[in-house]
C-alpha cells in the first residue's frame, strides 16, 4: 500500500517488524478486496455454463463449470420468447429508458435549481414535499393513480391512457417517474453548494434567468447530471413497476421477461421448448437455463452502458451532491 514512501532515498530502513506487519496487512487487504469482487461477479460468471450448455446436460452433477457439449439452444429459445419484434424490442426498451432519463434529468434539474438557488416564498415547502414524495412508496398510490389514468381528463374528454406509453412520459415530465424525487434531491443538494459568484457574474454579463440557468448553471452541474444519468438509465431500464402496471403491453424487455418467465408459466415454457426444438426430455432445468439466457440478453445493454459510464460515477461522486 505504501511502496512510495519506502522507496524514498535518505530514509533509514524500516525495522523488520514494521515491514512484515505492513505486508501482512496488504496481503489480507488484497484477499478481502478480491473476495468481495468475486462475490459480485460470481452470479454473472455462473450464468455462462448454464446458458451455453446443452439442455440435456443440465442437472448433471458432474458439470459445474465447463459444459461437456456446448450449444446456444437456450439462448435462441430465450430470444424467441422475449423478442416479439426481433432486435427492435431490445432497441425500443433501451431507447425508452434513454429518453425517459433525459426527460427526468431535465425536469429534476429545473426543479432542483429553483428550490436551491431562488428564495421565492414556498421554496422550502416544495423541498419538504419532495422529501415526502421520496419517502412515500409509490405502491400506496398505485390504485388511485391507475384509476386516475383510466379516466384521464384530457381537455374535457375522459380517455383511458393505461397501456399507452404517454402515461409514463407524463409521469416523468411532471416529476413523478422512477425515483425522480431522489434526482430532484440530488440536484438541489448540488446547486446549493455551487458558488453564488457564478450567477452574479452571469447577471453582470447581461444574462437573464433562463440564460443563466441554461448556459452557466446547467453545464456546471455535470457531476450531478452524470450521476443521475447513470442511475436513471439503469433504474428506468430495470423498471417493471411503472411499465408493468401503466403500459403492460409495451416493448419493455424487463416486463416481457418478468411475465414470460414467472413461475406460473414454467410448464408453458417447457412445452414450447419441447415442440420448438423437438426435445421431449426438456424439464425444469431447461426452464431455468432459458430463463437465465433471458437474463443474459437483458443484462448485455446494461453492462455495456455501465462499463462505458461507470467512470463518470466513480470520478464525480465527490461533487455529485449526493452528500450535501
Amino acid at each position, binding site marked *: *500500500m505504501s511502496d512510495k514512501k519506502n522507496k524514498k532515498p535518505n530514509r533509514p530502513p524500516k525495522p523488520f517488524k514494521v515491514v512484515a506487519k505492513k505486508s501482512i496487512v*496488504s496481503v489480507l*487487504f488484497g484477499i478481502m478486496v478480491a473476495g*468481495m469482487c468475486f462475490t*459480485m*461477479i460470481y*452470479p454473472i460468471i455462473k*450464468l455462462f455454463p448454464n446458458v451455453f450448455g446443452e439442455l440435456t446436460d443440465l*442437472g448433471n452433477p458432474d458439470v459445474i463449470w465447463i459444459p461437456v457439449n456446448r450449444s446456444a439452444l437456450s439462448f435462441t429459445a430465450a430470444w424467441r420468447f422475449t423478442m416479439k419484434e426481433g432486435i427492435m424490442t431490445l432497441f425500443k426498451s433501451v431507447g425508452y429508458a434513454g429518453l425517459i432519463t433525459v426527460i427526468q434529468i431535465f*425536469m429534476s434539474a*429545473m*426543479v432542483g435549481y*429553483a428550490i436551491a438557488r*431562488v428564495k421565492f*416564498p414556498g421554496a422550502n415547502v*416544495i423541498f419538504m*414535499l419532495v422529501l415526502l414524495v421520496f*419517502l*412515500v*412508496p409509490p*405502491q*400506496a*398510490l*398505485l*390504485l*388511485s393513480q*391507475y384509476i*386516475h389514468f383510466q379516466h384521464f381528463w384530457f381537455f374535457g374528454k375522459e380517455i383511458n391512457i393505461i397501456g399507452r406509453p404517454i402515461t409514463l412520459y407524463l409521469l416523468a*415530465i*411532471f*416529476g*413523478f417517474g422512477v425515483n425522480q424525487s431522489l434526482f430532484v434531491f440530488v440536484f438541489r443538494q448540488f446547486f446549493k453548494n455551487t458558488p453564488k459568484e457564478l450567477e452574479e457574474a452571469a447577471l453582470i454579463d447581461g444574462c437573464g*434567468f*433562463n440564460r443563466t440557468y441554461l448556459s452557466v448553471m446547467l453545464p456546471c452541474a455535470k457531476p450531478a447530471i452524470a450521476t443521475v444519468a447513470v*442511475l436513471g438509465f*439503469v433504474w428506468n431500464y*430495470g423498471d*417493471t413497476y411503472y411499465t408493468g*402496471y401503466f403500459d403492460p403491453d409495451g416493448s419493455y424487455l424487463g416486463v416481457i*421477461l418478468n411475465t414470460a*418467465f414467472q*413461475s406460473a408459466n*414454467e410448464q408453458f415454457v417447457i412445452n414450447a421448448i419441447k415442440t420448438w426444438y423437438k426435445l421431449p426430455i426438456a424439464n425444469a*432445468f431447461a426452464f*431455468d437455463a432459458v430463463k*437465465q439466457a*433471458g*437474463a443474459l440478453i*437483458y*443484462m448485455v445493454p446494461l*453492462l455495456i452502458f*455501465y*462499463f462505458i459510464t*461507470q467512470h463518470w*460515477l*466513480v470520478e464525480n461522486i*465527490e461533487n*455529485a451532491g*449526493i*452528500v450535501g
Partner: protein
Amino acid sequence: MNKMKYKNKRKLCGFMYTIPWIIGFVLFFAVPIFKTIWWSFNSVGVSENGGMSLTWAGFGNYVSLFTEQVASGSRTFLQVFTNENTNLLVNTPIIVIFSLFLAILANVKFKAQGVVRTVFFLPIVLGLKVITDLITITTGGDLVSRGNGLFSQGFAAMMLLRYTSISSDIILTITSYVDNIFQLVSRAGVQTLIYLAGLQSISPSLYEVAKIEGATTYESFWKVTLPLIGNITMFVVVYTIVDYFLGSSIATEVYSFAFTKSRIGIASALSVVYMINVLLVLFLVLLVSKKAVKKDV
C-alpha cells in the same frame, strides 16, 4: 428600485421552474392520496353510468383487511406485513454496515482501485429486481449459491460447531448470511456510492492530525470517520428502508384486490395501512437516529 424589480422577477422565474413539478404533485400525488384515503372508508361499487358509487363504510374495510386473505397464497395481511417489517429490521443494519465496509475498501488508494470500484458498484446494475429474479434457479437451488450452503456446510462452519462453545443458533444465522451474501451485496450498490462520496468529503488533514496525535488507523476510524459520516449514515439508512419498501410485494396484493376481486375499498385500505406502516418506520428511525446524530439536511 431596479434591483427590487430584478429580485421579484427572479423569484417569479424560479417559481415558474417548479410549476411542472407542482402540477405533477397535485395530479399524481396529492389527489391520489386523498382519493385513496377517501375510498378506504367507503365500499366502492360501479354505478349504472359506469362511474363509481360510494357508500360510507366507516372502518369496515380495515376490519375486513384483518379477516380476509390477501392474494398470494394463504397468507393473511398481518403475516405479509410482519414478514416485511422483520426482514427490514434485520437486514437494514447489515446492509448499512456492509456498504460502509465496501466504501472503506473502495476508498483505500492502491493500484487496482479503478477496477475494484467498477466492480463494487456493479450491484447498482445487478441488484435490479428483474435480474435477481431471473438469475435465481427455481429447481436446483440458487444460482447465486449453488453448491448450496457453500459456507454453512463447509469446513470452517463445521469446526466452529464442533469445537467451540458458541451456540449453534448463532453460528447458523451467521453462516446463512454468508451463504446469501449476494442478496446483501445486491442491495448495497447505491449505499456504497453514497458512503464513498461521504468518505471522500472528509478532509485528509483530519487524519493527519489524528496520526500526529498518535492515533492508530483503527482509532481514527472510530474517532474521526464515524462521527463525521453520521449524517450520511442517516441518509443511507433512510434510503435503505425506502428502497426496501420499493421492492415490496404489496403492489401485487393491491392490484389483485382492486382489479381481480374488484374490492377497491379494501385495496385502498391496504394502501393506506401500508403507507402508514412505511412512514411510521421511517419516523421511528429518524427519531432514534436524531438522538445519535445532529441533523441538518
